[in-house]
């Protein structure tokens, strides 16, 4: 990850951490390694990524750092304890970084994606679920991307920390 930033070099204006592994598992039979893997992907990786981003943005006094969250960022759910806790950790990390580096010109944002994304992943790996949800029941990728672009283009006089995106029919 550090090598990626080194390759990008100077002039970094945007960094997006968009990883996660929404794998289920009951706590009573969960290996520590499984929990740790989820935390590393969803939370610890966000710390490493965010740290490298702000190290490069702070000297220039500007830049946007965005993290992808989920409904799991806000609430625990049975059978998703590993994922939920990791995503919640990422959210509070993002919030801390927003408060820590906002005054130095760095816009840190968190995007909560509440629901299934109408993309290749669900259609390829969970076709039955995709069919059950239908196009109206899945979040349109272009709309999510619009949200990230909106955050990126905001003025420092009116920054949004968090967006939450869902379909009109999502129950929440």
């Amino acid at each position, binding site marked *: *990850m*550090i*090598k*990626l*930033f080194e*390759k*990008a*070099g100077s*002039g*970094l*204006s*945007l*960094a*997006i*951490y*968009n*990883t*996660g592994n929404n794998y289920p598992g009951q706590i009573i039979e969960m290996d520590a390694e499984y929990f740790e893997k989820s935390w590393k992907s969803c939370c610890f*990786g966000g710390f*490493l*990524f965010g740290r490298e*981003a702000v190290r490069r943005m702070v000297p220039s006094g500007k830049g946007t750092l965005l993290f*992808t969250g989920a409904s799991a960022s806000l609430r625990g759910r049975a059978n998703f304890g590993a994922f939920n806790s990791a995503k919640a950790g990422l959210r509070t990390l993002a919030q801390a970084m927003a408060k820590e580096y906002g005054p130095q010109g760095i816009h840190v944002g968190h995007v909560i*994606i509440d629901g299934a*994304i109408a*993309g*290749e*992943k669900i259609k*390829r790996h969970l076709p039955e679920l995709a069919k059950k949800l239908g196009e109206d029941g899945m979040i349109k*990728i*272009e709309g*999510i*991307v619009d949200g*990230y*672009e909106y955050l*990126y283009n905001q003025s420092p006089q009116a920054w949004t920390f968090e967006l939450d995106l869902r379909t009109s029919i999502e129950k929440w």
Partner: protein
Amino acid sequence: MKKAVIIGVGAEQGLGAQLAKRFASEGLHVFVASRTQSRLDALTLEIEQAGGKAPPFALTQRTKSR
């Protein structure tokens, strides 16, 4: 040229890839990372054919955190 770093572009038509394509189309030099070289190459090609810049970077090496 402004630069962007995006990690998590595993699926060709997934969110990460779409973010990379959008910001490349906005004129940013996009640096993307993925564990799957073939997907990365396909995304890079697509961005470059559309006139953007996106050198691929494979996350295949596990390096110790610093």
